[in-house]
């Protein structure tokens, strides 16, 4: 069991997301950076479906109420346990009574804290993910707050086997400022002519301040539609790039609605969504380049394979 002592920003319980209910209008929710969530669970010896803490735009301090192993991943934070500092993408043993802190540090927006055994909150519609707007999932459908006690399940292996492990640097996503994102054009290619596709692919678009868990708004050269900007509503997924009437693209993120009525010029590929998620709104710009579905799926499988095979004994610092 862990107790939250202090917390600010967007701290929620998330698992890979609420699948199977989109046809009833229930968003997936789940992590902004799915690869980091998966890595944190792997380091903690959990199944990939276990629930973790996601923290963004704030900081969190917890106290362990029993001996446990924690693991972290993501970007933009550093971790300290008792008197030691650890980079993210490590697991470590935490003795009962020790404090754990995740503090803002360097490039990035979202970090994940897993505990061996996973956080145990009630499953709602088959998932432990928090859906803030719907006020359900995670901890009573709300942000985590000071005083919350979070119970964990049974670790998969003895704690000492799970502690002091790292994800190799070369296995992690290549996070960085102003990333280039691979995108797959469509599905509304008939709503954008070659000239506007060229504008979208040859310019940088800045992540705007009005970005959140639902979507990242991009600001840059205006994109014009062929005909109207209205579309008969159809299903949406994370990564879809909608272009409303104002011509400024919006990339759908974890809490996006299940359907939308704006034409989509492209979709950001799964392997590169973490690079976008970790951009700082108001500071970072993205540049999109075209790829194919086949190349995107191969890139995603390769990245996932590196993460699945990337665990090594603790290396003590962030050297590659």
């Amino acid at each position, binding site marked *: 069991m862990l107790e939250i002592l202090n917390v600010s920003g967007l701290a929620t319980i998330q698992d890979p997301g609420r699948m199977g209910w989109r046809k009833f*209008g229930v968003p997936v929710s789940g992590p902004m950076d799915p690869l980091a969530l998966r890595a944190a669970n792997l380091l903690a010896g959990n199944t990939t479906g276990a629930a973790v803490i996601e923290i963004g735009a704030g900081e969190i301090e917890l106290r362990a109420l029993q001996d446990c192993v924690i693991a972290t991943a993501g970007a933009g934070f550093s971790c300290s346990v008792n008197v030691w500092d650890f980079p993210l993408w490590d697991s470590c043993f935490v003795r009962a009574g020790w404090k754990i802190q995740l503090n803002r540090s360097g490039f990035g927006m979202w970090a994940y804290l897993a505990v061996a055994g996973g956080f145990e909150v009630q499953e709602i519609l088959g998932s432990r993910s928090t859906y803030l707007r719907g006020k359900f999932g995670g901890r009573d459908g709300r942000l985590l707050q000071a005083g919350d006690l979070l119970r964990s399940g049974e670790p998969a292996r003895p704690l000492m086997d799970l502690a002091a492990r790292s994800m190799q640097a070369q296995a992690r996503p290549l996070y960085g400022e102003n990333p280039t994102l691979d995108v797959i054009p*469509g*599905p509304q290619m008939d709503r954008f002519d070659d000239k506007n596709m060229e504008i979208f692919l040859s310019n940088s678009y800045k992540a705007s301040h009005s970005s959140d868990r639902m979507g990242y708004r991009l600001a840059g050269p205006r994109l014009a539609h062929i005909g109207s900007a209205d579309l008969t509503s159809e*299903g949406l*997924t994370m990564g879809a790039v909608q272009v409303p009437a104002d011509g400024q693209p919006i990339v759908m993120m974890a809490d996006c609605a299940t359907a939308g009525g704006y034409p989509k010029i492209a979709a950001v590929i799964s392997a590169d969504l973490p690079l976008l998620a970790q951009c700082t709104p108001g500071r970072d710009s993205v540049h999109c380049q075209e790829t194919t*579905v086949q190349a995107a799926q191969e890139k*995603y499988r390769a990245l996932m394979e590196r993460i699945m095979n990337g665990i090594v004994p603790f290396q003590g610092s962030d050297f590659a």
Partner: protein
Amino acid sequence: MKASLVPFGDSALLVKFGDEIDLSTNQRVQALDALLSANPHQGFIESVPAYATLLVIYDPLIVTHTQVSDWVRMEMERSLEGLSRKPRRIRVPVRYGGEDLDFVALYHHMSTREVVRIHTSREYTVYMMGFTPGFAYLGKLDDAIATPRLATPRTRVEAGSVGIAGAQTGIYPIASPGGWRILGRTSLQLFDLAADPPFLFSPGDLVSFVSEGIDA
């Protein structure tokens, strides 16, 4: 129109049956949704039926786009006629007299009683769900009372509000912002996590409104 399959990123594909709001098109969408869900391919996650399209979502770590396309095409070669599940009929009691009932009556130069008579006089199909959990898009509304959305959406529409927008009608399952014209309220709960199933409606269901009176 012949259906087409287009990639939607690297983990979904979109089956387009058309681009209009049309009952026979929507029935083909619902039929394919039922077919895919009943015989899921390995790596299939879920499908999302909309007015004229079906979004098929899969796990690219398990299957490729080509495998999913082949599967969907093969399933589509089966007859989609008569394959949708039997729709349920749901009657929704409504206390009319919502914020916009007077406006809708004025807009169409008729009495509020006439608006209510027209709204309750046909059976609507759940074309799709979305917007918020449990929100059902019902159609088609009689042209005689079809009314544009509010120019500026309200920041809060109460749960149970029955509204119209263009040729659609619907009910707000939870309090949320919204721009539909509100005609009345129902006491039915559309979304209840304690219930099984938690949603009153499913895509394809048939819904009719029953007046419980008109408040002045």
